[in-house]
């Protein structure tokens, strides 16, 4: 079972985002993590590989040179190899462009049964890359996968999250899955994993290495401006002599002011 996991580094979810001139202020981004949904994909991939008892997991990631450290954390968790896509032309990619680059890299890696990635990045929340990627690779795509029931022999049965429940899907392999938070918590890298990570194959490829012309990667969408969510209003304590009175007042406020009931 050879699995390719597409992962990227994102700002730590605890980051206090600051906005400057209508865009995210890069100065506020100082701690980086593996995108949490990609981390679910890594955990599932590790379990699949270990259950199969053979095969390898290749991480494919687009990012600046500094992203190397985050990618190596994926190796420390137990993935086998990494391909880091670094090029000035990759700096302002939108999801469509990212999918083109990933598809080209995946084709170059070759020989895989499954491509797994997070259903969205927690940085810009597009939720598009995996879908485009499946299209470029000409493969079936299952989104929001929460559990793999059965896999092997060119076929897989997986559960995906749908509003209010789960849907059981059968697909041929190879396929592209995007991960939603499932039952399995991503593991911590062990000290041995961290020590071993630097000895694992790590390749760095440019646009030219994967046969792409930077001209074809121009974004088709543009972020015009970013605004912070409005400040939360202070809470309000409902006054009244008795519990019944307070409940009546609360119900009135919910109906007349908040208009939610």
């Amino acid at each position: 079972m050879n699995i390719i996991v597409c992962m990227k580094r994102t700002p730590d979810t605890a980051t206090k985002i600051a906005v400057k001139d209508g865009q995210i202020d890069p100065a506020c981004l100082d701690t980086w993590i593996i995108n949490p949904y990609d981390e679910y994909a890594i955990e599932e991939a590790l379990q699949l590989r270990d259950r199969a008892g053979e095969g390898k997991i290749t991480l494919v990631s687009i990012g600046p040179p500094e992203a190397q450290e985050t990618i190596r954390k994926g190796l420390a968790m137990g993935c086998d190899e990494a391909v880091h896509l670094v090029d000035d032309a990759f700096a302002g990619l939108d999801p469509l462009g990212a999918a083109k680059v990933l598809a080209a890299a995946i084709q170059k890696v070759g020989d895989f049964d499954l491509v797994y990635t997070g259903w969205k990045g927690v940085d810009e929340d597009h939720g598009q890359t995996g879908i485009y990627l499946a299209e470029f690779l000409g493969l079936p795509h299952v989104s929001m996968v929460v559990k793999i029931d059965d896999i092997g022999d060119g076929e897989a049965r997986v559960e995906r999250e749908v509003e209010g429940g789960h849907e059981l899907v059968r697909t041929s392999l190879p396929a592209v899955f995007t991960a939603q938070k499932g039952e399995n918590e991503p593991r911590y890298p062990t000290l041995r994993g961290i020590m071993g990570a630097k000895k694992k194959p790590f390749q760095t490829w440019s646009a030219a290495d994967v046969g792409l012309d930077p001209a074809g990667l121009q974004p088709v969408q543009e972020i015009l401006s970013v605004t912070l969510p409005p400040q939360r209003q202070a809470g309000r304590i409902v006054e009244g002599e008795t519990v019944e009175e307070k409940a009546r007042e609360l119900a009135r406020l919910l109906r007349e002011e908040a208009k939610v009931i």
Partner: protein
Amino acid sequence: MDFSLTEEQRMIRDLARDFAQNEIVPIAAEHDESGEFPAETIRKMGELGLMGIEIPPEYGGGGLDTLCYVLAMEEISKADAAHGTIMSVNNSLFCHALYKYGTEKQKQKYLIPVASGEVVGAYSLTEPMSGSDAGTMRSRAVRDGDEYVINGRKSWVSSGPVAKYILLFTMTAPEKKHHGITAFIVETGRPGFAHGKVEPKLGIRASATCECVYEDYRLPVANRLGEEGEGFKIAMSTLDEGRIGIASQALGIAEAAYEASVAYAKERYAFGQAIADFQAIQWKLADMATRIEASRLLIYNAALTKERAEQSGARYTRESSMAKLYASETAMWVATQAVQIHGGMGYSKELPVERYFRDAKITEIYEGTSEIQRMVIARSVLGGK
């Protein structure tokens, strides 16, 4: 001197931080209250490699350097100092001594399971009537053919109630005082060994501490660590390493207390302004930050000096004592200021600040009190022996 961290050191710090914040912080108050040993998180720490960080992989450890150990100790202790105590005793007191002084057979049998975190190790020097002055210990080991027969009572054994193996220091030649102490590796499950009273403690309450009683406890000669009479040297050189660990524990406690104080000072209003706007509070925070930074530099310096000293066979007693002395007194001072900044809430069990305050105190006592550290440092200053 270059203290910048390598990628690996950063990754290990991050791992310890993630683990500590996700797995230890949520259970710390509960275990502090009940005094129950946190077996589950300690087991997980073993699986990650945190119970034998510096021991080479062939003996079950992580094979990393002292700075990695320092960084991990700091992060774990920042979440809960009791976990830090258990980790530090296992890493620096048990594993380090066995790795340095053990025979190949002893390492195979006792180091591998403890360094890999499968079982817990302890270190037992102190007795009811002998603490700072180890030369007066009353327990005895008498040679009888291929065995030693041990009798006596040891006190304050951290992890004693759960340890499978204990590094025991006892007298084989009382008339020689320090030079009559010998080290042994004790298997706790055997006849003649019994747990004594469990110590009810002010702080680090989840790190189980008890007395251990030996009554005609028989131990094969093969379980002696080093030669007869080498025990004191082994105990003291092991504490050189241990004190770097305790200094890191103190640093973690100080950081936790400091960070809580900064956050609280910005949030808490009095007289129409955040208390952080009062100069009296600002100066406390500034002093806290400065002493913490100084502690960190002393600890990193001790860690790097140790790395070099291990190559050359030299000791690093002075650096390690200075780091332990300064960091532990910083932890106590910072925790005291943190309680003050929190006012009444600093005295309440609803916040962890009072726990930091209770936990900080131990770092000034065990592995050599502050007075003993000053004695050790003064000896190196004055050039005595």
